[in-house]
């Protein structure tokens, strides 16, 4: 189909975009990569009065790595996150996760900011961002605020973003030496979204887990951190038995989603299997 009529403004600055958003928060939608919004418009599931195109705003772009951390602009596309050599050297998981998102056409347009702000329960970046202990920088009429990713998501397609706020960037602490991340994903055969996706980071010191961080997507209403499993493994070796126990703990963390394609039991099973496989990969 084709969308209902709407007005369109290409914002040249973050301030302008926020002004437009504040004028009519309910009737306005932000357009970045458009990979969720445009299908919704075409199906007339969304009929905003005004589309504010933020794709040209310089303040929302770029990937920067400094002494203190990594800043990824909200407009960074999946393809840019895949291609960035400095990012790959710092955190290879970005390339690995980006390669599992949809197809090249989608990766060329879709953005990390859109993925996080849209809060699709099966999107990939939320799990990765949770595991990376990323902070999300939000800009609104009252200025800047930062929220930890694990506190960012509220429910299906729902976040702490206020209607007049814009997700501006993602901030990631630089990983300590020896910290390795991996992202594993079971794709839905039609949508390509995660039936379950697990991002795990582990740092081993003298054979024992010194630091660990886990993010899970696809399984529940929103991405979440595998805190109990992480706590369990701290100070322990990645033995088969410990891995099995941690994977089991993680699979019991939440009541999983159930839909026509996959039952809650199947998703819980995938959490267990994929966590185990991720941890085995990180142990070797």
């Amino acid at each position, binding site marked *: *189909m*084709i969308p*209902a*009529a709407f007005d369109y403004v290409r914002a040249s600055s973050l301030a302008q975009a926020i002004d437009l958003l504040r004028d009519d928060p309910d009737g306005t939608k932000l357009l970045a990569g458009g990979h969720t919004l445009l299908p919704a418009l*075409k*199906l*007339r599931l969304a009929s905003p009065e005004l589309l504010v195109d933020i794709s040209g705003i310089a303040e929302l772009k770029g990937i920067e790595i400094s002494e203190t951390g990594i800043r990824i602009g909200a407009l960074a596309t999946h393809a840019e996150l895949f291609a960035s050599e400095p990012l790959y050297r710092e955190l290879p998981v970005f390339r690995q996760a980006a390669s599992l998102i949809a*197809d090249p056409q989608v990766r060329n347009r879709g953005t990390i900011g859109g993925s996080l702000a849209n809060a699709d329960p099966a999107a990939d970046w939320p799990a990765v961002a949770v595991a990376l202990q990323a902070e999300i920088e939000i800009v609104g009429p009252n200025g800047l605020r930062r929220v930890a990713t694990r506190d960012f998501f509220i429910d299906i397609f729902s976040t702490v973003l206020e209607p007049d706020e814009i997700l501006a960037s993602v901030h990631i602490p630089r990983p300590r030496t020896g910290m390795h991340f991996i992202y594993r994903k*079971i794709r*839905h*055969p*039609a*949508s390509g979204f995660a*039936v379950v996706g697990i991002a795990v980071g582990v740092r081993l010191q003298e054979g024992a887990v010194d630091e660990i961080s886990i993010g899970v997507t696809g399984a529940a209403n929103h991405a979440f951190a595998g805190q109990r499993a992480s706590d369990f493994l701290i100070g322990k070796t990645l033995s088969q038995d410990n891995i099995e126990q941690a994977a089991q703990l993680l699979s019991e963390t939440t009541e999983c989603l159930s839909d*026509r*394609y*996959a*039952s809650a*039991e*199947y998703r819980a*099973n*995938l959490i267990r*299997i994929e966590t185990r496989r991720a941890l085995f990969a990180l142990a070797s």
Partner: protein
Amino acid sequence: MNDTTAIRLIGQPLKRQEDFKFLAGKGRYVDDVRLPGMLHMAVLRSPHAHAKIRNVDLSAAKVAPGVRLVLSGKALAGKIGPIVPNWVIPGSKVPFRPVVATDCVRFVGECVALVVAETLAEAYDAVGRIEVEYDVLPAVIDEEVAIREGAPQLHDNVPGNITTIYKVRGGDYQNAARAADHVIGLRVVNNRLIPTCMETRAIVASPEPDGTLTVYIGSQVPHMHRRWIAETVGIPEHQLRVVAPDIGGGFGAKMHLYPEDLLCPYLARELDAPVKWWESRSESHQSTSHGRAHTENIEVAFRNDGKILGLKVETLGNVGAYLSNMASGGPTVNTVNFGTGTYKIDDYEAISRVVVTNTVPVDAYRGYGRPEGAYIAERAIDAVARHLKLDQVDVRRKNFVQPAEFPYRPYGSTGVMYDSGNYQGLLDKALAAFDYEGRRSECQALRGSGIYRGIGVAAYTHMCGMAPSRRLAMSGFDRGGWESARVSIDSSGRATIYSGSMSQGQGHITSLSQIAADVLQIPIEDIDIVQGDTRQVQAGHGTFNSRSMAVGGSSVHVSSQRIVAKAKKIAAGMLEVDEKDVSYSAGAFSVPGTDIAPVTFPKVARMAYVGHKLPDGVAPGLDETVFYDPTGMGSPSGVHLAYVEVDPETGIVDILDYVAVDDVGTLINPRLAAGQIHGGVVQGIAQALYEEVSYDPDNGQLLTGSLLDYAVPRAEHVPNIRSLFQQTASPTNPIGVKGIGESGSIAAPPCMVHAVLDALSPFGIKHLDMPLTPPRVWAAVQQARMGAAQ
């Protein structure tokens, strides 16, 4: 005398002549047709599976910007329609189907009203302003539920929701069951599919200044569409020109008569302006015909040594809310007639019931009935092997029809005859290419280390190119089995061939040119093929049922032969010899054994048109038209093997290898033939592993409404397919071809299911219904493990 021999083009893997325009983005599809003053139609569709229409309020839509016409079903009643099926099995009860619903809607997606506006956006906007009041009725989705006592009824004239009962019988099944050592039953579901074409349906109807109407439509059957539109809208056939431009896939879905095919021509004449309709993907899922949707109950009687004595089948074919174009023929003639597959089973008994439900009408989809038939035979024989713990290959070998038995009539059938074949040869070739023994050992060895691999085998045969015409009458098929071709040679000796077949991607320009080039002995570059325009092409039935080479190709062959025969007469006049002394070789007519200078084909063509020196009784021109009606049908066959690895922890099926050995008779172009096998196998794998239409069983809402939910396979989902051939020429046509388009989609589903079941055999899993999605496979493993633990 010229004694060089022309290279025979039939059998050559020529590249597709038609590809350049597609690769260059120069294909021209219906949506590319943009005419001055063209209006756009949009359709309001039912949101309910079953409801009475209480009131349709068009008033707000009528005053919306750009709107030219708004109509509900009531305004059209008596003016156009009803839509009637083209294949009606004798004794069927045909439900009344208006073009646009009047009093009652019977599936989600049925047309309720329409808008014609100046832009597509305005048409969609106005559709949003139409208010309809419904009284929702109970809906029935499932074919097994629909025939139960007390189920919601769809049509007054279809009691019990059964339109058609069809029976097949040969020998005495009860006797076989008594004589057998074992009788086992199985219930299999043939999952409902969406025949996803890259190009959705589209139509433009344009009134011409001379009072005729041109209809651009993505049609597999342009001449059939001309007849149907003429009869249903009330336009004399000769005043209707149907043009089918390039088509982005058909697979059977573009050979039926849909409401929009009738609305655009009607509205174009009413408004005296071109009217276009284009189907969005989500509309396509709920308005273009679906495929398969069967439940089969099978009983198989067999001896301890694996020899099958008898087979009994009960088919329920879900055809959706109305009898679509061919709908009563699919679950009946096309399915249960073929239920014994490649096996010699003399005692056979089948009954098929055609069932209406509150779903999108189901009709032909690649293979139509033959995949369902092969699935019956193959699942049955695999169950026999599993039950007796015999090798799946040995059991097939024991039951195959033998090469000496062709032509073979299964179970003494009067309607089914397999013209030729060598199933043992296919099997041997497939096993060797696959390294069956090696892989069998590998499976066993790996099981010890928790790796579950399996081998699937499937054999099939069927019949292609429904013919001859007089036989189609017996099954209630309101069309002929012939195809027409006109070969027109111009004065330079180049050929234009007008073919009633209709390519939707098959590559007819290449394959038909190869056929003609061999007979005419002219360069393939000198041949043009014209299809898809009823004003240019004299007549035709189009492309379906894998008929284009066997019937359409044969008509090109025969008319090319007539060209050569006439050219020889003309050449004899030019050479001043008797016609019987003239021989035609390498594109020149000569008199062997003499030193008379040969005349080339172009020179003869020139003479045909200047007419200066024609023998007595030979008319000028070199132009022949043939309506070729075959005497019988060719029977392709094949054996496919798949090698899979199943991860019991996730249920994911990884396809490690796929070997297809097909006997499609003489190969015209091995490259195109392999392409047909690849495409069919991909669609078959998709049915086995990924695709399934889902409805909410309670309210009849379509749950797989878009490609976000309905899993059409992508490149990553399919393996490298190894396609090999065996060529047993069909005696039913002059080329020896049998038909190929449907083979892959017939063989692949049982082959894949068998491979997965073989991999899961250590768990004691004996049955799974398609699609074998990871969650479904995992659940079966879980259940088996729990059962084993108890």
